[in-house]
Each structure stands twice: as structure tokens, then as C-alpha cells.
């Protein structure tokens, strides 16, 4: 890979993607493709789960297998899909967005990536020794008595992936602070970079705590210590505190990068500046700060005293304020714009509309008296899928469509992209909306057998999930058609203003032929260019644009 041939527009041999390559763009794609593979595995497990739930009896799979399935589904979706997919975007985009030629520590970056397949294979191999079945939370003492080796593999996998995400975070922070082109100050940086700063801060502060909890759990499991085992005098509640000290922030680790993606997609496709740049940037930091002091809201019904529950109720509700600021600002960005309703923007609007639901039910869950009723029920399953699927996956697809021309140099297939959106949106709401009702009525989660009165609604959910599963087909078609016969994209098909669009598509191996110039703020759309001096550059730039989809 040393013989960089610049005029080839950054063409890579396909074999590069299977090597220990240190180019951040290759690593970004490696992350994204790997995480998509795990998404299909996690999704397949979810379909088995939903098929089992089509009837009240545990007839499709046995209850033990059922528990393994949702444990693996949750673990894979979180640690091998959403978190690495965020890292994929960050790896690909951050150096391009700030005009750097690579990440600060390219080799460390490659190491962090290669830990993903290792962790993933370890986890999946646990199916051969009896997969873990204590849920992705793995609370002791249940996790200590339900299958030793599956549980241990689960712990190892999480330790490896946690380490990888710490390495990634160090890299992102250093890159953002040290490698921006000289005239880009921190307030003219694209919002995606802000989002990754907030995410990385959270990763660095909370992941080590998870590691500590897992190592102690591993001692209890393998060496018979009793940190968390009540039979030996240990305290299982301590594990819950340690676990959620990481895993609540982890929710923001999962969504914040995609908030960043949305802040990039909306202004470009609605041809308006992002509304409230600073408000969005700082509210991200506020979310990550608040995210650190709300963990015990997962423990409202657990071994926590009343006053503690009240403290965490208040802090949790406060998160609604910065989140609200973001949602309102995004809506105001759309308002009055000239919306180009392509798949990228449709998914972004789909994100807004479903994440809103997740946010509203989130505030309800923060209210302890109500949470006590619905904790550990399908209401919660509905809620967090609105956050994780609506809030992350929709935005992720939006980002994939938005940057597809940059990454491949071709345009994706718009028709199939739109079909993908419609099927995802319908399937998603059909699967997860009715779950709220199920939970309030009395259906608890993580059960293979349920009361027959809930069968009708469960069947709606199951059919919805089939639509959702099928919706990945048009996605793959759109991507493939783009590669095979998509129009050549040119540098900047969306006429966007952030730096990554100044280089060729796909970008040069060294990213930019010469150091890029900051000829506008990242979102200065709609400024009357003719009346101002020195802005001819922009005009030139925009007229040079090849074709618009």
C-alpha cells in the first residue's frame, strides 16, 4: 500500500481490506462491513426470538435456547453492531472532516479494529459450549449458575471490545484536538466531530468501570470468589451499580455519534444552515455529562433505597432538556428549507420521528413511580428499541446513503433506497409500537412463554419484524446497483460544505492532494454569495459539481 498512486482517486485493491492496513478510510470500511455482518447475525437471532413469541408456548425453541438467543441478540446488537458502526463513521470521516491525512495513531487504530472480529468470533463460538443466558446485563447470581463457559466467553468478548473502544476513543480525541488544519478552530468544526468528542469522553470515563465489574465477575465465576455471590457473602447489587455505571452511558455511546450524523445530513439535504450550531454542540457535551450520573434509574426496583431513587429520577429527567434542544434545532433546520427527499434525508426524518417516541417514553420511565410498574416489561423493550433502532439504526442508514457517493465514487440506487426506507419505517413501528401496550398490561420481558391473552398483539409484532427483516434486501440491492451501474458521483454531488467533499470520491490515499482550504463554515448555506467579495471560490466549487441526484 506504499505505492500510492494519487491520480487513481484513492482506489484500493480489495485485498487491502483484509490486511492490517493503517489507512483510516480502509479501517472505517472494515469496521462498517464487519458490523453489518454482525447486524445480520443479531437480526437473525431477533427473528427467531420473534418467531418463538408468535405463540404463547415455548414451542419453537426451548426456554433455555430462548434465553441464549435474546442474550446473544442484545450483546451482538450493542457491542458488535451499533458501537462499532459509530466507530466506523468516526474513523472514516473525522480525518477528512478536519483536513488531516490520517488518524493520530494509525497502527493503534488498526489494532482496535482487529479486536472486533476476535471478540465477535469468541462470542459466537460460545454457542458451541452453551451460550450465555443471563441477558446482556448478566446479573449475578443468575450469571454465576447458568453455564460457566458461555458466560466466561461473554466476559472475554466484552473485555476485548471494551479495550478496543477505549483505544478508539483516545485516537478520536487526539486527532480532533491535534490534527485540524490551522484555520479550523473548534467552533468551525463539523458537528459530527463534536459528537465524537462527547462520545469519546464517555467511553474513557465509563468503560474501565465495566472492565472492573467483569473481571470481578469472572473471578466469582472461575475462581469461586464471592464479590457478587450472596452465598459467600457477596453483594449482587454492587455488580448492578458497576454495570450500569458503564452501561447507561453506553446508551449515549450508541446514540451520540448518530446525533452527529444527523447534524451533518439535515443541513445539506435541506439546503439550510444547521439551526443553533453551538446549542447542538454543547448539548451533546451536556448529555454526556448527565449521562454519567443517571445510572441507577435502571435499578429503581432493585436493591436501592428510596432517596437514591429520587436523586436518580431528577438527574434522569434533566437529560430531556439537552435532548429537547437537539430535536427542536433539527426540526428548525428543516423548516423553510428546500428538502431533497432522497433516501438519506428520508432516513434522517424517520430518525427524528422515531427517536422522538423513544425520548418521550424515556421521560416517562424516568418517573420512578411509573417505572416501577413497567420496569423489565415489554414497555421497556419498546422504549429502548425506539431509541436504539429509531435513534441509531435510522440515522446510521441515513449516513450510509449520505456518504455512499464519497466512499464509492458512485451514486446509490434511489428507488430501492426509498423502498428500503418505507419498509423499514413500517416494519419498525409495527414491531415495536404495540410492545408498549403489552408491557403496561402485564407482559414481562425475557420470557419464552407468555399469557395467551397477549397472543394477538404479539403476532402483530412478529409480522412487523418479518417486514423489518425483509427491508434489508432493498438496502443491499440499492448498494449493489450503485456499485454496478451507479452514476459517477464526482467530488461533491450534494454540494455540501464540509471538507470531506473537497477531495475526490473516493478520497486520495493521502486524503487531499493539497491542504484543503476552509472556504466556508461547515453549514453556511443560503448566504448570498454574489454580494460578497472573495467568495467566488464557493461559486466555482458549486458549479464544478458534476451531477446532482
Amino acid at each position, binding site marked *: 500500500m506504499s505505492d500510492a498512486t494519487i491520480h487513481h482517486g484513492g482506489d484500493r485493491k480489495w485485498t487491502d481490506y483484509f490486511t492490517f492496513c493503517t489507512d483510516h478510510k480502509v479501517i472505517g470500511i472494515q469496521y462498517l462491513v464487519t458490523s453489518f455482518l454482525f447486524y445480520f447475525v443479531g437480526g437473525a437471532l431477533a427473528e427467531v426470538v420473534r418467531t418463538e413469541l408468535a405463540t404463547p408456548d415455548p414451542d419453537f425453541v426451548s426456554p433455555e435456547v430462548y434465553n441464549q438467543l435474546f442474550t446473544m441478540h442484545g450483546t451482538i446488537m450493542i457491542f458488535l453492531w451499533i458501537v462499532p458502526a459509530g466507530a466506523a463513521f468516526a474513523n472514516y470521516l473525522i480525518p477528512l472532516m478536519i483536513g488531516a491525512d490520517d488518524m493520530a495513531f494509525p497502527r493503534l487504530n488498526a489494532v482496535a479494529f482487529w479486536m472486533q472480529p476476535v471478540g465477535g468470533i469468541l462470542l459466537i463460538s460460545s454457542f458451541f459450549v452453551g451460550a450465555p443466558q443471563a441477558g446482556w446485563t448478566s446479573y449475578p447470581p443468575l450469571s454465576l449458575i447458568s453455564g460457566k463457559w458461555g458466560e466466561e466467553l461473554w466476559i472475554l468478548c466484552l473485555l476485548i471490545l471494551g479495550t478496543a473502544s477505549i483505544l478508539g476513543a483516545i485516537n478520536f480525541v487526539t486527532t480532533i484536538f491535534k490534527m485540524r488544519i490551522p484555520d479550523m478552530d473548534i467552533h468551525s468544526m463539523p458537528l459530527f466531530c463534536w459528537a465524537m468528542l462527547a462520545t469519546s469522553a464517555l467511553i474513557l470515563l465509563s468503560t474501565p468501570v465495566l472492565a472492573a465489574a467483569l473481571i470481578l465477575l469472572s473471578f466469582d465465576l472461575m475462581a469461586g470468589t464471592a464479590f457478587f455471590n450472596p452465598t459467600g457473602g457477596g453483594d449482587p447489587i454492587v455488580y448492578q451499580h458497576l454495570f450500569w455505571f458503564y452501561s447507561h452511558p453506553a446508551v449515549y455511546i450508541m446514540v451520540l455519534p448518530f446525533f452527529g450524523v444527523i447534524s451533518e445530513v439535515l443541513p445539506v439535504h435541506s439546503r439550510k444552515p444547521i439551526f443553533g450550531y453551538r446549542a447542538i454542540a454543547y448539548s451533546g457535551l451536556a448529555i454526556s455529562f448527565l449521562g454519567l450520573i443517571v445510572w441507577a434509574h435502571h435499578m429503581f426496583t432493585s436493591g436501592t433505597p428510596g432517596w437514591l431513587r429520587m436523586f436518580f429520577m431528577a438527574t434522569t429527567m434533566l437529560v430531556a432538556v439537552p435532548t429537547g434542544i437537539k430535536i427542536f434545532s433539527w426540526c428548525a433546520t428543516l423548516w423553510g428549507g428546500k428538502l431533497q427527499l432522497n433516501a438519506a434525508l428520508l432516513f434522517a426524518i424517520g430518525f427524528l420521528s422515531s427517536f422522538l417516541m423513544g425520548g418521550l417514553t424515556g421521560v416517562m420511565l424516568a418517573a420512578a413511580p411509573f417505572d416501577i410498574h413497567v420496569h423489565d416489561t415489554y414497555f421497556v423493550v419498546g422504549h429502548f428499541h425506539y431509541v436504539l433502532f429509531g435513534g441509531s439504526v435510522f440515522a446510521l442508514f441515513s449516513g450510509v446513503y449520505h456518504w455512499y457517493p464519497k466512499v464509492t465514487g458512485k451514486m446509490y440506487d434511489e428507488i430501492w433506497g426509498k423502498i428500503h426506507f418505507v419498509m423499514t419505517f413500517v416494519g419498525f413501528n409495527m414491531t415495536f409500537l404495540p410492545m408498549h401496550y403489552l408491557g403496561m398490561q402485564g407482559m*414481562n420481558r425475557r420470557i419464552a412463554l407468555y399469557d395467551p391473552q397477549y397472543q394477538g398483539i404479539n403476532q402483530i409484532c412478529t409480522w412487523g419484524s418479518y417486514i423489518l427483516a425483509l427491508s434489508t434486501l432493498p438496502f443491499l440491492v440499492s448498494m449493489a446497483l450503485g456499485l454496478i451501474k451507479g452514476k459517477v458521483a464526482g467530488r461533491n454531488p450534494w454540494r455540501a460544505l464540509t471538507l470531506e467533499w473537497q477531495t475526490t470520491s473516493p478520497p486520495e490515499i493521502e486524503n487531499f492532494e493539497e491542504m484543503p482550504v476552509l472556504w466556508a463554515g461547515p453549514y453556511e448555506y443560503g448566504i448570498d454569495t454574489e454580494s460578497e467579495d472573495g467568495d467566488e471560490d464557493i461559486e466555482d466549487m458549486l458549479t464544478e459539481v458534476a451531477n446532482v441526484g
Partner: protein
Amino acid sequence: MNIPSSITTLIAGIAITLVSLWYGQNHGLLPVAASADANDVDDLFNLMMTIATGLFLLIEGVLVICLIRFRRKKGDMTDGPSIEGNIPLEIVWTAIPTVIVFILAIYSFEIYNNMGGLDPMVSGGSQMAMHHHGGHKIDNMVAMGDTNNSQVAIGIGKSPGVGDDEPLKVNVNGLQYAWIFTYPETGIVSGDLHIPKDRRVLLNMQAADVIHAFWLPEFRIKQDVMPGQESQLSFVANREGTYPVICAELCGSYHGGMKTTMTVESPEAYDQWVQERTVAMTGGESVALNPSELSDTDFLQSYAEDMGIIENTLQQIPHAPMNMMSALKP
């Protein structure tokens, strides 16, 4: 701003408000409420539902309008207006969620407090507390350590006030995959729970093996039941009927089967049930159900029908649950 558009805005605002107010009361999402506390929780939920409906309609409305009104005409390459911010607007929409959140937090706190979430709820009644205060320091600390008599209990429920009747105490033992209820006053051991209407009930709960959670959907209360640590729930049922008791914390493969019922009946019917049970226990004819002489499985077997436990479940209990037997002894 021109007049027609502000009139439209006004009408839309009124419509959204009316719909939210109506839906907040008529969503029909919750099961019946069988205690006063449950009614309080429902009021809170209705308020949240009203606010959420309003915000939902507002924001989804904005999105739909954008989708329809602001789509780009074919061939139009111009940009929208360059509006980067609007300080008064931003202040307003920061203030709105802040105010809403404060109202909800205070209201939730009120209700939580009314339900007895912050009450000390001294286990063993007030004498116990006095005993503690007068007790020797060391004893006291030991007592705190084994948490059976900790002064601030974990759970929800008012401590009995002066002049209140003694609550009906029931010991709840959760084990894979059954609930076992022991009435310390009468020695009744049962696989389902019977309580009289309108009398305070105090559940002292502990688990034998892993963490379970005791959930009464119609009462809107839930509390984890932990091994090695006691937790409590206390409530007054005000509606007769038979309600599900559900385990809400993943506790193993048959977690979904771990459920039974709670019957709320008139004081007379309840007394009669107590009578029948006591006779059954002492009468020579029926199986002598002295729990401490049976193995776990045998013991459960006799309740299997009552509790609707799947046959399989019984073979699923390999380990001797820690202190199940001691918990069963009155």
C-alpha cells in the same frame, strides 16, 4: 407575520391541546387499578401521556408539514434562507422542557412519597425499632449487617402510623420458579396469595437462589426479591378480585412460568380461607404438610397444580435453595 397564518397556528394549537387532554385521559393502556396507590400512579401517567401526546403531535406535525411544504422543486438549485439561530426562540424551547421536567419531577416525588417510597418502614413494627435503639451497639451493627432488620428497608410502603391497625404480614420467598407465601401469624404456607380488602398488607420478601422480582401489575408495584437481603412491599388493596403475581426479573429458563395469583377478598371470605387452610394443615387426613420435612421438590410438587408450574420446572431445581426451608418455618 400575516394574520391568516397566525389564526391557523392558533387553531392548530387549540386542536392539539384538546386532543392531548382527551387522549391523556382515555388512552386505555393500563389495566384496572386495584389500590389507591395505583390510582395515583395512573394520574401521574395520564399527565405524562397528555404532555407527551401534545409534544408528539406538535413535532410530528412539523415534520409532516416540512415533508409536504418544503420539498425542493425539480431543478431548483437555490438554498433555503440562511437562518442559523434565533436566541429568543431557543430560550423558549429550552425553558419549556425544563419547566415540564420540574413539574414532573416534583409530582412524581409527591406520589412516590405518598406510596411510602421514602418511609423507613421498620420491619417487625415499631417495637423492633425501639429494641434497636436501646440495644447494644454491637448487636445493632450485626443486625444491620445481615440486613434482616435494617431500619431503612428496601421497597415501597408506608410504615404504620400511630393508631393504625397492625398490617397483615406475609413472608414471600421467591425461588426458581415459584412463589411461596408464609403467613407467620397462622403458619399457613401457600403457593398463592390471599389478602383481605382494605387492610394494609406488608410483604417481607427474600429469594432463595437468584434475584426475582415481585410484580403486581394491577397495583403498579414491583420490587426485586434478593438472596441474602430482605426487601418489602406494603399496600392496601381496595378492589376484590384475583390478580396475577408475576416474576419480572430474569431468573432462569422458566422465568416466564414463574407466576401465581393474588386474591383480594372481603374480610369474611379471607377469614374463611384462613380457617380452611388451618384445618387442612392440622387435620390428620390430608398430607401432613410440614414443609421442613420435605425436600424442595416434594414440597413444590404438592403445590405444582396450584401454582401452574410446568412439570419440567420441578426437575429444574438442582441446587438446594439456600435458606428456603428456614424461610418457610413460621
